[in-house]
């Protein structure tokens, strides 16, 4: 009788065992999938063109491209990222990079010049003093990292769209591509519609102080409608272009649009 209470009447024990085995997770198969996916990531990291890359990776890359298109379709150029009061600012605002702060680019502001290339009328380089003289605005917005954490900061600088107008950029071009001073040559493409968003900013100050080295001195591109890695720091040049030139994280598999 005691035994019966653990089994529901009419249960065939043999069928029970058979069914349980069937519904057990197949560990070897899962390891295979996980292993295959990490192997794929490794080939992306090394940048090698692997001929026999798994079909899963090919499919995932295709879906990611599709997701780029969906996000571009969803993007509303008039939708503003939420702004916050000063009391909401995250203190301290985190330093975040794939290297330690000690290894961050240490740019000499006096020597630094912003190079302007590509589909623009005026290709002159800009010194920091010249850029500081441009009209600036302050925004307190949320920075959202691809890892999931977020922080609210206060950014001051010139709207990128004003600068693009000033240099006579062809705003029908597809991208503004940024090159940074990082030793690995960090770079990232920004789609033109996001570049022209009213809140997209060439940032020169954090919390009303000259942008510290930790946050990208002398210039960071602040894009509150994008994930953090699409906000390049230590920028040395920008290129207006129709070519997709890839990017540091984009080439490793992060979704290129990565809008928020």
């Amino acid at each position, binding site marked *: 009788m005691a035994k019966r*209470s*653990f*089994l*529901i*009447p*009419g*249960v*065939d024990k043999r*069928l*029970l065992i*058979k*069914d*349980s085995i069937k*519904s057990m997770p197949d560990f070897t198969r*899962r*390891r295979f*999938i*996980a*292993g295959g*996916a*990490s*192997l*794929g*990531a*490794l080939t*992306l990291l090394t940048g090698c063109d692997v001929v026999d890359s798994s079909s899963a990776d090919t*499919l*995932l*890359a295709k*879906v*990611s491209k599709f*997701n780029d298109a969906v*996000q571009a379709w*969803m*993007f*509303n150029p008039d*939708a*503003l*990222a*939420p702004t916050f009061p000063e009391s909401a600012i995250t203190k301290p605002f985190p330093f975040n990079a794939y290297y330690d702060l000690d290894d961050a680019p240490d740019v000499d502001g006096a020597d630094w010049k912003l190079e302007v290339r590509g589909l623009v009328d005026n290709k002159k380089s800009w010194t920091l003093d010249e850029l500081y003289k441009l009209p600036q605005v302050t925004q307190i917005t*949320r920075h*959202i*990292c*691809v*890892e*999931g*954490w*977020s922080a609210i900061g206060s950014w001051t600088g010139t709207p990128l769209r004003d600068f693009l107008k000033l240099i006579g950029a062809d705003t029908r071009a597809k991208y503004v591509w940024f090159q940074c001073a990082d030793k690995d040559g960090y770079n990232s493409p920004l789609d033109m519609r996001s570049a022209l968003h009213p809140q997209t900013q060439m940032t020169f100050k954090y919390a009303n102080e000259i942008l510290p080295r930790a946050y990208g001195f002398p210039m960071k591109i602040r894009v*509150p*409608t994008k994930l953090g890695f699409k906000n390049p720091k230590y920028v040395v040049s920008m290129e207006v272009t129709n070519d997709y030139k890839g990017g540091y*994280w984009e080439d*490793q*598999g*992060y*979704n290129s649009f990565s*809008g*928020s």
Partner: protein
Amino acid sequence: MSSLTVSDEQVSATPAKVIQPAWVRVMHWTNAVAMILMILSGWQIYNASPLFGFSFPREYTLGGWLGGGLLWHFAAMWLLMINGLAYLITGFATGRFRKKLLPITPSGVLHDVRAALTFKLGHDDLSVYNYVQRALYAGIIVVGVLIVLSGLSMWKPVQLHWLVMLFGDYPTARYVHFFCMAAICAFLVVHVLLALLVPKSLRAMIIGR
């Protein structure tokens, strides 16, 4: 010849009752695959910046690294969302939700939970859900809707800001997403355990009868 025809008719005249229609079975297993992919890749993404003082073991994550986990997560989300939407629409349109899941009364749930805990809860007629099942299945549908809405909030916090406001703010949406995942995992354990205790219910979910 004629006798053969007659016997054929006799067989088909008494077909076993269809407990789970084909659309339920297809969507159930599609959802199972999508959920597992979402959970394992979600754990990979969680590990990049844990909300709590723990990480998920590497061998139970999908994608190999954050970028890989994101690729899986944002691919499987289409499977989950399209299948989930189709399930909700069909469930309401066919009246299945109403017929199978209602009513859910607190006293009924309490009674059946007590019966289940003392191993006295029968499940002989697979076509009728007891109150524990009704509460669990209705509950998990709500959690499923919540996890998609909180996920969309985290994916597009600017474009879908009105959705973020529903949860309060971005970090809260992230916690909601996590706790919905935890609820789904808990449901999965109970659900699989109960299915194993009543294997004919598993059979019905595979072949329909």
